[in-house]
């Protein structure tokens, strides 16, 4: 199989996937979910078959790779096709877990743990929190139908297909095989050394960025208007307020 057939295959399968996603997207009227699912699975299977040719003998790691990759992609599709935002968020958690698994396969355990702790433990919980705060009653209209789905799917397909085919094309010309890892020092230690020496300034900048985001988020959300009922109440004298006995 030479490069041009690979490219064509990638284009074709991506297009198939795009059609599947289009069918799966929520919209008014009857949506062709079953057809979409079948098409999507077909596209995934095609991709698996397409990439299988690069293994001489598939090993157990490859099995895990396919498992996690398929899991990541299906759950990612779930993120964008679910009608309820909560389900989107949960599928996203699944994606994160799958990606963390892929990252473990790539021998970056620390990053995998960080992914789960930060994404799963913090970011997505915050998302859930906001979703719940902001969406009380049923499914609003805007979640039940997408808009411009067709154009978006074409654009996304074009982007994905060009990127994927371009990258894998160049990589196919010179197949890159992973060098054996020299595991004398644990991944965490080495990553720490890199981050703390070579990327010290970036690390500092990242810290400052986080601080800024913290302050910014508080400043954005904080309300500056006093409530009408409480406006009249005089403020307690400094240092006295803690002493007034008002448990409720």
């Amino acid at each position: 199989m030479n490069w041009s057939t690979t490219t064509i295959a990638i284009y074709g399968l991506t297009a198939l996937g795009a059609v599947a996603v289009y069918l799966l997207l929520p919209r008014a009227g009857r949506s062709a979910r079953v057809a979409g699912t079948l098409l999507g699975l077909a596209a995934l299977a095609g991709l698996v078959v397409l990439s299988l040719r690069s293994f001489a003998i598939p090993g157990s790691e490859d099995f895990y790779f396919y498992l996690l990759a398929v899991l990541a992609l299906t759950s990612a599709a779930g993120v964008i096709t679910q009608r309820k935002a909560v389900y989107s968020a949960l599928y996203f958690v699944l994606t994160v877990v799958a990606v963390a698994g892929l990252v473990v396969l790539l021998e970056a355990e620390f990053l995998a743990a960080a992914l789960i702790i930060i994404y799963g433990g913090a970011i997505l919980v915050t998302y859930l929190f906001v979703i719940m705060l902001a969406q009380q009653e049923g499914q609003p209209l805007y979640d039940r139908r997408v808009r411009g789905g067709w154009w978006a799917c074409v654009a996304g397909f074009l982007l994905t297909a060009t990127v994927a085919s371009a990258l894998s094309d160049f990589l196919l010309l010179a197949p890159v095989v992973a060098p054996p890892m020299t595991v004398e020092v644990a991944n965490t230690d080495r990553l720490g050394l890199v981050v703390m020496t070579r990327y010290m300034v970036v690390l500092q900048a990242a810290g400052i960025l986080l601080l800024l985001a913290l302050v910014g988020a508080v400043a954005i959300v904080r309300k500056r208007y006093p409530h009408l009922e409480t406006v009249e109440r005089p403020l307690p004298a400094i240092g006295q307020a803690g002493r007034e006995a008002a448990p409720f």
Partner: protein
Amino acid sequence: MDSLQQYSILILLLPLLGAVLAGALGPRLLKGATHWVVILAVGGAAYCAYQLFEVYTHLAVHTHEPVQLVIYDWIGMGGPTSWLTVNFRIDPLALVMLLTVTFIATWIVVYARDYMRHHHHPERGYERFFAFLGLFVFSMCALVLGGNFLLLYLGWEAVGLCSYLLIGFYYDKPAAAAAAMKAFLVNRIGDFGFGLGILLIYLKCGSLDYDYVLSSAGITALGDWAPGIALLLFCGAVGKSAQLPLYVWLPDAMEGPTPVSALIHAATMVTAGVYMVARCGAIFVTSEAVMTFVAAIGGITALFAATMALVQYDMKRILAYSTISQLGFMFLGLGVYAADAAVFHLMTHAFFKALLFLGAGSVMHAMGGIIDVREFGGLRKVLPWTCYTFVIGSLALAGFPMLSGFFSKDLILHQALEVQPLLGWLAVITAGLTAFYTFRMVLLAFWGPKRLPFGVHVHESGPWIIVPLLVLAIGAAGAGYYFHEKLPEFLVDMMTPFDVAFEHLPPGAVVHGLSHEEVGLLSGVVAIAGIAVAVLGYWIRPDWSRRWREESGWLYILVHNKYYVDEILATVLVRPLQQAAAVGSAVDRYLVDGLVWLVAAGPRLVGFILHRYQRGAMQGYGVMMAGGLAVIIFLVFIFARVLAAAN
């Protein structure tokens, strides 16, 4: 050596620290106690300056050699070794300046504590004021301590900045804001020349260190450019030290608070020009013509400013013109190869002029901000301390025998009469005028019948004001006698280029007319005569002064209007510049802006067509973006493939 380094760094850092603390903590934390920070800082700097002096004079090596301290490498100028360093040069000249500056500044900061607190202005900037003062002392010390021209320039501009900030201290007063602007702009003219001079020095010598530039090798490297460079540097001195024709900013600078006038515009900053010329003597003496030019500018400015001081009524302005005049004396001294006398005069002048300004400030303080001598009189009884310290300062300024001004002025006059007899005699006349206008002011303010402005509760100032006055009065009275032999001895190294040049003057250029004692007698007589005339005209027979004024006719009007210099400058310089600016502005507005508008019209047209497709929905833009990106990547990919195929 170590202690030299420590003390010199401390001299710089203490005031800076004081300024930063006062500025940062003052408004919130220190408030009314801000002065303590700056007093301690500046006083500490004065102490360090004294210690520096002690250590320097007790060095085991040959005395009075300049000591170079390299603090750190500052700016790499290309090449592995060529660095502009921050280095200090400690030598007698720097020490004299440092001691003078820090000593006077200490007492003025003390004085400012009461003055700024009970001031008639609704005071908002108490902390700001002290922060600026600290910053000024830092800048001035950096100027004096610096061992190269770049540090000199840095300090030079920094003191200019402080001067600007402090003149415009009452920034809500239009006059103050305008005066600050004027000072800054006029100084720019001088500093432009100064900067050019420094650049030329670097071009010619490849170094800015005094050590090299002022050595014989450096002077040789400067070659024929030396006189030109000297003139350019002098240009800066003319601006900073308010000499003809750039003196116009100094009288207006009196809009600032009085302690500022005393410290910056009388005692220290304005003498930076004198310091600079003395420091760069080796460059200036390369040309006799330049020296003559310096002397001429100094002598003429002295006379010119003294005549203007004759007819002023605002005490601070009289003192300002007097300052210009005395600075003229210093430049005269420099121009006639008597640099030690000039520096000596700088020091004594710092004492008595600071004293006079502070005294005027005390009067102003008592009068509720009024400083025009026509509005009050006979204050001798109500303000005794102020009055008598003021009289001591005035006597010193007038050159009354055995007071400090007498000694320094005498040295300058003697040498001037020898080298430039014409300017020398002019200076003698100026000395007489000085005595006259000084006592005119004293008599108008303190003698005669008691007159007070309406509604002012007059009171003598408190100890925070009186003590600095007394200390400075002691200095004004005794410094001349105490130092008149020691200082020239101490400064003998600095004098070497001047002395050498003096020895090599062509025969006949030096006239040996009057001996030292005769000149002393002459100046004493002139001073006493000036005082006597003032006493006659303003105390014993007040109607005489009125008659003088009326009889002098157009001359009086001319002088009273300050020779119309401001107006002439406005006509010759400012108006044409404004016209040119108007033309430029019109070109900018119609021609350039029109072109820009035309250029902009294209996108506007495109935007007019496209704007309807902007629906404000970000995802619509996202679709376009993703599609466009995909097309670009696709094209790049195809292109790369075609290239690969072609190869």
